[in-house]
């Protein structure tokens, strides 16, 4: 059985600029794979080539063993895609737009309405089903776009920053949807490392058009996150420099970084400190710590692999 998604020496040049440089990637099986990289790394370019929106300068992109460039129709026969933030014909309703995609993808007529209703219900757009898309906000349109990937029971789903344009609730709902789709291959690009950590089992990192690593999140974290543990501590009040230094000086703590006004990422030496001991120590400071959670090592791995952002 061929890999579900395969890139062979995929290269894309725009004049002098090389967006992708000999990318090799092979993904198979039912799982969610996060596709990470800085702006301009080549994530969207890869996904556009995989979905026939652009052509590779060199190399081959295959879905379920079929070359997208030579037979896009066959390659995408069992693939749903969401690339960037598509617009929908403004005079159509979500029901009509999704009906068009159902017909294109060959969803049986008797199933069509139920699939559309279910998809719209999952993205909480049922009550807007018969309103013209032209009047929708960006977030509402993106919900319909997400619904479009749920229509035809695809084997492969390619999502390019699916949470883009959504409010926090919408983002959470998309995460839930993607999590529920792990019985098939989901290939998802995102800038949100927490989102990738939550919903993906594997991660591919790309920079300057080249694949840096493709492995399970655990392996990537173990190899590149620099060892040790990390926790995120939330405080009732703002975290000032004095508080950060106090936490830094706790035994076993190797570094502290503010993740936002009220949260600190605390890295610690696991040879000296366990998570429960760290929790006790932080609570012992009586500095208003109110939440404590294990932090993802993916950010560390990302930062150690990707040295600069364009």
């Amino acid at each position, binding site marked *: 059985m061929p890999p*579900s998604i395969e890139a062979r020496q995929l290269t894309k040049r*725009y004049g002098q600029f090389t967006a992708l440089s000999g990318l090799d990637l092979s993904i198979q*099986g*039912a799982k969610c794979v996060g596709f990470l990289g800085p702006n301009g790394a080549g994530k969207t370019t890869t996904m*556009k080539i995989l*979905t*026939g*929106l*652009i*052509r590779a300068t060199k190399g081959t992109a295959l879905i379920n063993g079929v070359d997208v460039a030579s037979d*896009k*129709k*066959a*390659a*995408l*026969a*069992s*693939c749903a*895609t969401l*690339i*960037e*933030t*598509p*617009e*929908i*014909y*403004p*005079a*159509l309703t979500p029901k*009509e*737009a999704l*009906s*068009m*995609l159902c*017909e*294109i*993808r*060959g*969803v*049986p007529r008797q*199933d069509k309405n139920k699939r559309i209703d279910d998809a719209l219900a999952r993205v909480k757009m049922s009550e807007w089903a018969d309103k*013209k898309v032209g009047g929708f906000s960006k977030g509402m349109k993106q919900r319909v*776009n997400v619904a*479009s990937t749920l229509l*035809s*029971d*695809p*084997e492969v789903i*390619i999502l390019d920053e699916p949470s883009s344009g959504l409010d926090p609730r919408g983002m959470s709902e998309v995460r839930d949807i993607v999590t529920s789709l792990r019985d*098939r*291959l989901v290939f998802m690009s995102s800038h949100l490392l927490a989102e990738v950590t939550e919903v993906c089992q594997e991660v591919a990192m790309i920079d300057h058009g080249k694949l840096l690593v493709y492995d399970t999140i655990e392996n990537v974290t173990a190899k590149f996150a620099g060892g040790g543990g990390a926790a995120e501590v939330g405080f009732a009040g703002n975290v000032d420099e004095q508080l950060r230094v106090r936490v830094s000086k706790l035994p076993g703590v190797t570094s502290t970084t503010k993740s936002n006004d009220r949260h600190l990422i605390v890295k610690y030496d696991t040879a000296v400190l366990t998570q429960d001991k760290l929790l006790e120590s932080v609570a012992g400071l009586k500095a208003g710590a109110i939440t404590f959670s294990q932090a993802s090592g993916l950010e560390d791995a990302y930062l150690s692999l990707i040295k600069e952002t364009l």
Partner: protein
Amino acid sequence: MSREGSKAAVGSLVHVGIAAKYNFLNYFRARRFYVMLAIILIIAGLLTALVGYYRPPGFVDGGALGFYGAGWGSFASIVVVLSAAFFGGDAISGEFQNRTGYFLVPNPIRRSAIYVGKWLAALTASTIILAVFALAMLANGLFYFPGNVPWEFVESFAFAWVYLVAAMSLAFAFSSLFKSSSISVLMSVILLLFVFSVIDTVSSLVAGIEPWFSLTYGAGIVSNILNVPYPAAKTVTPFGPGGRFTVVSYNATVPEGLLILLVYLVVMAVLGLVLFERKEFTS
């Protein structure tokens, strides 16, 4: 991981029908269809009112054929050009500029099926507009000349429709060439309304060459068929002192005109399709 049975393979011809159906629905619901319809009704209404009030000799004194020649013959080409530009001018470029292509293209459907489907939708919408104008002219004609519908009017309508098909192909080619909707619409209008006319004039009057390469020259059959007898293929008119100078004008015969329209239809349709196939969704 196979999910057989959940969907069936869809043929490209069916895809053409699907693309045509939903694009036509989009056209039909959109403001532009009604704007175009309003423009046509205003032109038809003005013609009706002016002819009814002033009774210009060109309209009412030349018999039924003269009436259709002065009304339909003078305005049908403008209706064709406006319809082709309105519905075809941004059909493809709009997919790029408005980003609707990101919704439609990354699906198991060939770009050619999308192109042909959109072309059919635009042609259907334009045909409705052309038919409404023809019906308005017909109603006027029947009012002044009851029971007298010249066969030449039917032929002229058929030629106007062929011109519409060719003009639509040209508009689609421009639409595939440019990423900006407004530029592609504007280019279609300018080319069809002005540039080709200038080429026709310069070619025949100045250079003395029959403008067989011009779309509007071929489209001349739409109005020429309403003249009896059909205008001569070549007319040399002397002017100046002692007739020292001559002005040469050309008229395409019906077979020539149809051939020119057909060649434009095929060449521009293929050119537009090739351009669309090669065009990339870069933002």
